[in-house]
C-alpha cells in the first residue's frame, strides 16, 4: 500500500482508538494517575514529610504573615474577609476553577490577584514572586492530603483547548 494510504489508515486508527478511550493516546486514565510523591526516593519523601526540614515551610510561614497583613488602598488583609487561614481548607484542591464573574477558568494565583484587585484595591502580585509563592503555598497547605479535584463541568472548552 502506498504511503498516503498507510498514513490515512493510521490516522483513522488513532482517531478510532481515541474515541474508544475518550482520551488522546498521551493522557493517563483517571484511575491510573499517581502523585509525584509515589515516584520520589526515600530521602526526598523524608524531606517533604518533615515540616521542620522542608524549605517550603519558610514560604508557608511567610504566607501566613501575608494573610494577616493589611494591603492596598482598602487597607484590608485576607483575614479581614476570609477569617482564619484554615477556612481555605479544600480550596486549592478545586483549582483551576471557573470564575463566573470573569467567564473563564482561572488558577489559584490568578484568583488571589483578583481578590487583591477587587477587594483590597492592591496591585496584583507578580507570578512566581516570593509573595505570590508564599501566599499560594500557605493556602495550598490547607488542602494538604486532599485529592486535586477541579469542577470540570463548566470548563469543557478550556480542557479541550488544552488537549
Amino acid at each position, binding site marked *: 500500500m502506498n504511503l498516503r494510504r498507510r498514513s490515512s489508515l493510521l490516522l483513522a486508527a488513532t482517531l478510532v482508538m481515541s474515541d474508544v478511550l475518550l482520551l488522546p493516546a498521551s493522557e493517563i486514565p483517571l484511575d491510573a494517575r499517581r502523585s509525584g510523591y509515589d515516584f520520589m526516593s526515600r530521602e526526598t519523601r523524608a524531606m517533604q514529610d518533615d515540616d*521542620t*526540614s522542608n*524549605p517550603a515551610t*519558610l514560604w508557608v*510561614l*511567610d504566607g501566613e504573615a501575608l494573610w494577616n497583613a493589611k494591603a492596598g488602598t482598602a487597607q484590608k488583609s485576607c483575614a479581614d474577609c476570609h477569617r482564619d487561614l484554615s477556612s481555605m481548607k479544600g480550596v486549592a484542591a478545586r483549582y483551576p476553577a471557573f470564575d463566573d464573574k470573569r467567564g473563564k477558568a482561572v488558577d489559584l494565583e490568578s484568583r488571589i490577584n483578583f481578590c487583591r484587585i477587587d477587594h483590597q484595591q492592591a496591585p496584583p502580585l507578580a507570578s512566581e514572586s*516570593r509573595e505570590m509563592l*508564599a501566599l499560594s503555598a500557605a493556602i495550598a497547605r490547607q488542602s494538604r492530603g486532599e485529592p486535586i479535584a477541579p469542577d470540570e463541568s463548566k470548563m469543557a472548552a478550556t480542557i479541550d483547548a488544552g488537549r
Partner: protein
Amino acid sequence: MARALINIPPKVKRGEVIEIKTLISHVMETGFRPSNTGQLIPRDIITNFTCSYNGEEVFQSTLYPAIAANPYITFFTVATESGTLTFQWTGDNGYSVTETAQITVE
C-alpha cells in the same frame, strides 16, 4: 518574612541530650554556576553558623559552597538549664542573621 526555622523539643529534662534542627532561607550561590551570558554568577553563601546557649558557644560550623541552598543543619546539645539559645548565620556580602529561641529545662 520568615527566614529561619528552628526546632527545639518543647519540654526537656535537665541533662538530656537534645537535637536542634535549623533551616534558613538562603540561595547559597556557589560561584561556579554560569549565567545565561556564560559569565559565572558570583559566590554568595553563608560561611558561618553558630549556636550559643545562654551566651556560651555550643556549636560552630564553617560552611562551603557544597552546602545545599536553604541550609539545613541539625546538631545536639546537652540541656543544662532553661534560657535562651542564640543562632547566628553570617556570610558573604555582609550577610548576618540572628535568631533566638527559648528552651525550658525541667
